[in-house]
């Protein structure tokens, strides 16, 4: 991973700051392999899985503009010392934004490389004074069918709102961030505006978008894809080329954009999406069972 200076963000986000030194001081900066060039922005903003807007890849870009992201409040609940409803401007006040270039591996066996702008999730959670009994963090996406046509579909097996979660030690890992921007600009709606999770060592569906609720819990929270098809999607959903999926081979991935006759840019999928520094979180766990 490498960190480069964030360009000026659009007005609704505080000035971006550089945190390269911070990342370097943590000591994990494996040089990305040569194929890790940043995906052109146009592809990252027009090829999205955000089923709240529809299940076609171009639906979110076409229908996402209907979403109102101002004002935006996040309800903080559960095992925290400071529960309440926070406006996004409160959550971002005094936060130093940094750019993180991460690989994004979708469970559908495609991948991109995205320059996110955000801040460590741990920084956010600690502001709410988590209690010692908290073991997990649960997130909820906005439920607003009038602006999100996918939530009105009669033919969807997904129950909305979309929910996701992490073990608290996963959430506290420095690689896990809350993103508010990408490509030096605020997040487009189709990419999960105005506030989304990015957990680069897990399949993309864990990185929940357009978050309106954060709850710290003692028991493992329910997660949408696990509820939809538990034999296919587990709670952990760590990128793992050795655990086969009933739909897609997870041994390799197609780095997008692919082009038809230029070779498909198929590359080998790496354990934890190449972010080996998270391996300690799962020491001693059977990853075949905890997929």
């Amino acid at each position, binding site marked *: 991973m490498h960190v480069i200076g964030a360009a000026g963000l659009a007005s609704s986000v505080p000035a971006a700051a550089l945190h390269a030194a911070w990342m370097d001081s943590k000591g994990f900066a494996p040089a990305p392999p040569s194929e890790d060039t940043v995906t052109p922005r146009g*592809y990252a903003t027009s090829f999205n899985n955000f089923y709240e807007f529809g299940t076609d890849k171009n639906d979110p870009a076409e229908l996402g503009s209907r979403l109102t992201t101002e004002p935006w409040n996040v309800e903080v609940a559960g095992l925290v010392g400071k529960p309440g409803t926070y406006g996004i401007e409160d959550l971002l006040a005094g936060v130093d934004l940094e750019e993180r270039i991460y690989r994004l591996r979708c469970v559908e066996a495609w991948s991109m490389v995205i320059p996110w702008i955000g801040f460590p999730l741990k920084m956010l959670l600690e502001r709410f004074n988590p209690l010692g009994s908290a073991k997990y963090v649960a997130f909820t996406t906005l439920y607003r069918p009038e602006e999100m046509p996918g939530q009105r579909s009669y033919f969807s*097996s997904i129950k909305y709102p979309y929910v996701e979660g992490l073990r608290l030690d996963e959430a506290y890992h420095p690689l896990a961030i809350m993103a508010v921007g990408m490509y030096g600009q605020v997040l487009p709606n189709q990419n999960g505006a105005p506030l989304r999770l990015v957990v680069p060592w897990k399949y993309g569906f864990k990185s929940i978008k357009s978050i309106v609720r954060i709850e710290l819990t003692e028991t493992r929270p329910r997660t949408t894809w696990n509820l939809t098809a538990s034999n296919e999607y587990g709670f952990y959903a760590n990128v793992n080329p050795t655990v086969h999926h009933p739909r897609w081979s997870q041994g390799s991935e197609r780095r*997008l954009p*692919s082009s038809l006759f230029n070779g498909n840019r198929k590359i080998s999928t790496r354990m934890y999406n190449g972010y080996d520094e998270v391996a300690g979180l799962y020491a001693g766990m059977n990853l075949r069972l905890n997929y």
Partner: protein
Amino acid sequence: MLAGWDVAVEIRSPGSVFGADPAEAIVSLLGTWTIRLLLITLSISTVARIFKRPKIVTLRRTVGLWTFVYACIHFTAYFTLLAEFSISAWLEDFSERTYITAGMTALLLLIPLAVTSTRNWQRRLGLHWRKLHTLIYPAAMAALLHVLWAAKASFLDVFIYGLALAILFGERIVVRIRRRAGRGASSH
């Protein structure tokens, strides 16, 4: 045919038609047209019966063969663009992914139908030809399962195809029952 034009434009300017993942988009577009053509093939005799236009049944062979051609291109696109000519990737998909198993089954069932579609074969097989060509029904079921099992969370397409297939199957059952009843009545 439509897909051909889109592919030509895509080759001239990558990303312009099929977006970031043209391989997946093309395979899926070809699959969509394959099952639609299959349903159109099945509907020809139904339409001929309902509207009493027996002559249009002659279209069935042409549309049926186009269905087979699309199924073959759909498979070829999958094998070249997604499996990237890897037999082992294909075999893994075939054995581990039920929707691929179903799709391959549908394609295999269509092969004898395409081969025996000529008048010559029709004459040679005589009464067996009709029986052989009832393979179109398990092929259609397998194709529907292919679409159903490939669907992640959105079932609108599957619902429409399934409804169409149910209507076409239902009409045939009704015809059969009536024919049987008619025969029974006349023997008395």
